[in-house]
């Protein structure tokens, strides 16, 4: 007997009548605005703001990478090429919302208003998290992949339970979607209908591993249906589209509409980090093809065509970028202040007696060291 035969069915009613999957499935093509008639309807002020952030963001990526070459940063996972996602993520949120970034999302954190130097603390090596997560409503840059996604769900859920209408936006890469924590976070989000939005920046690679070795899913946005979470795909190098999709998802979540899974198709133009050798796993050709889709250029092309990018606006954006970069260079050049005694300060609310002993021992060592200098 074959499967064919068994699919004939008479009065069979499904025993667990499911919801309609259709609204959960992504459209056949990723959402785009730039280069479509919809672009003309977008508020010019928003376009200029996005543009300024893109220009500053690009400069931030370049400056941070340069700082690794000078040994001022230990490592930098650049988001060059992904600036549209970074900027859109930050700008889609209101001040009371929370952002949950990964190690690659320093730019989103900066665009949200966190001091760039504090954002780079992790990569500079003076401490783990440099900024105050509560003040900025930005979770620590997360390194263990996908582990911050359930945090975003929990925070959003807690806020909702408390009658607080904030939204959590959690970022992950394409590789991160394979981790069990992605699955569990989406499962919890679907069940609790927490006000959380997941943005997958699908840059095609997890370090060296291309998407085709990562998953056989039609698209990453298709993963949503398995959790009852709508999946949306967007052109990740079209900053207006990403901003629009995310803003809609964020406001939907805020108004009780539940979570959304957004997949943005993008590309990192730099290597995984400055320590990586991308030539081992991808061709110059491929990089060139994606350079042609540069998110900064694409917005500028539109702005010019629409007559929205006069010389003065362009100059101002570049000037803001240079000011940021100069400030970064200057401040990162200073030796970061570290205090070895801080090692013991934040392990527990009150240090244990054991830590007290260890602290005293280290203090003695440091005194001895100072004395022998």
């Amino acid at each position: 007997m074959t499967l064919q035969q068994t699919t004939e069915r008479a009065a069979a009613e499904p025993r667990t009548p499911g919801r309609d999957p259709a609204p959960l499935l992504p459209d056949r093509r990723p959402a785009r605005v730039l280069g479509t008639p919809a672009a003309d309807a977008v508020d010019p002020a928003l376009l200029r703001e996005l543009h300024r952030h893109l220009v500053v963001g690009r400069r931030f990526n370049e400056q941070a990478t340069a700082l690794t070459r000078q040994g001022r940063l230990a490592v930098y996972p650049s988001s060059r090429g992904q600036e549209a996602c970074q900027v859109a993520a930050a700008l889609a949120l209101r001040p009371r919302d929370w952002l949950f970034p990964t190690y690659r999302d320093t730019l989103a954190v900066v665009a949200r208003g966190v001091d760039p130097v504090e954002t780079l603390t992790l990569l500079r090596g003076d401490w783990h998290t440099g900024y105050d997560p509560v003040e900025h409503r930005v979770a620590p840059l997360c390194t263990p992949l996908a582990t911050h996604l359930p945090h975003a769900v929990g925070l959003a859920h807690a806020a909702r339970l408390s009658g607080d209408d904030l939204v959590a936006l959690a970022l992950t890469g394409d590789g991160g979607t394979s981790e069990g924590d992605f699955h569990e976070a989406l499962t919890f989000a679907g069940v609790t209908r927490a006000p959380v939005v997941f943005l997958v920046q699908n840059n095609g690679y997890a370090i060296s591993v291309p998407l085709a070795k990562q998953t056989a899913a039609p698209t990453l946005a298709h993963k949503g249906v398995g959790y009852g979470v709508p999946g949306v795909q967007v052109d990740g190098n079209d900053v207006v589209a990403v901003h629009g999709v995310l803003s809609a998802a964020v406001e939907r979540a805020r108004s009780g509409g539940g979570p959304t899974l957004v997949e943005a198709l993008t590309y990192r133009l730099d290597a995984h980090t400055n320590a990586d050798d991308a030539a081992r796993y991808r061709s110059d050709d491929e990089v060139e093809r994606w350079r042609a889709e540069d998110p900064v250029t694409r917005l500028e092309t539109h702005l010019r065509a629409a007559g929205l990018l006069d010389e003065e606006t362009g100059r101002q954006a570049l000037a803001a970028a240079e000011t940021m970069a100069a400030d970064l260079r200057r401040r990162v050049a200073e030796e970061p202040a570290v205090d070895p005694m801080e090692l013991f300060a934040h392990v527990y609310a009150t240090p244990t007696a054991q830590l007290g002993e260890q602290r005293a021992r280290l203090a003695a060592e440091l005194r001895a060291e100072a004395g022998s200098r």
Partner: protein
Amino acid sequence: MTSRGTTMAEALNTALRHALRDDPAVHVMGEDVGTLGGVFRITDGLAAEFGDARCADTPLAESGILGTAVGMAMYGLRPVVEMQFDAFAYPAFEQLVSHVAKMRNRTRGRLPLPLTIRVPYGGGIGGVEHHSDSSEGYYLHTPGLHVVTPATVGDAYGLLRRAIASDDPVVFLEPKRRYWTKEDWSPDGPAAPVPPIGRAVLRRPGTDAVLITYGPSLPVCLEAADAAREEGLDVGVLDLRSLVPFDDETVCAAVRATGRAVVVHEASGFGGAGAEIAARVGERCFHHLEAPVRRVTGLDVPYPAPLLERHHLPGVDRVLDAVRDLQWPSATRARHGGEPYAVGA
């Protein structure tokens, strides 16, 4: 133990009820904790009384449960997570080690996590595999966590209240085979309040040697001390109550007073809590020791099937043997002599 009285399960239930009542930030969550009241009924009636948002059934995904609780704690709630059994907390290990234990530290104290993770642990209940692990050795080696385990009904209540009120994440290990032990205790009774987490307590004084233990092994040690008395040895019993913070002061005082110590726990010996205890005692009480610190622990084997577990668990006889082996002056020296070595170590 009387047939009247309160069980540890009831005391834990009461502690949760009082915590939910006293602080709206407290949220209980886990698998089957709502409608069912938990497979051990520790959360019985809480969903009915406080609603299913305050005592919530979660999807079946431990990493997701703990990760979601982390986010809730980041928002300012005080989640109390139930892991259904010891071995089923392992899927949440990465969340525990890489986030729960480190969040306060990573953020320079700006994001403390007031989280309690309740884990029924240990054996002796005839459970099938993966239902009887003693996992405290993993947790106590992870800086940033407090590791607490009550051995009595009163402590179960008092320590759980302390854990939930703590601004640090606490792994709260409940000796599951003690859940149904009744003691003459009531939450309204005049019992002495339980001191802050981190203090051990001498359950029984003794001048000849001290048994250092915690959680499910306390009754075994008390029984062994009784038996030793019949052999003419006055053996004290120390209940650690918390492994982190560790109460060096009380432990060292007890060891120095007697010069002889046996550490007793169910977990496998190699690299277990007993190793740390014996090592610390060796470091801090070296010149007071009349004999090596002995360990009586579970064997270094995967937890056995029900019909074999009695050979794995430290029983009264093994504790007694270890006591006899503590190199007594020949008058009191017991029958087992020779090179000291530990079962399960």
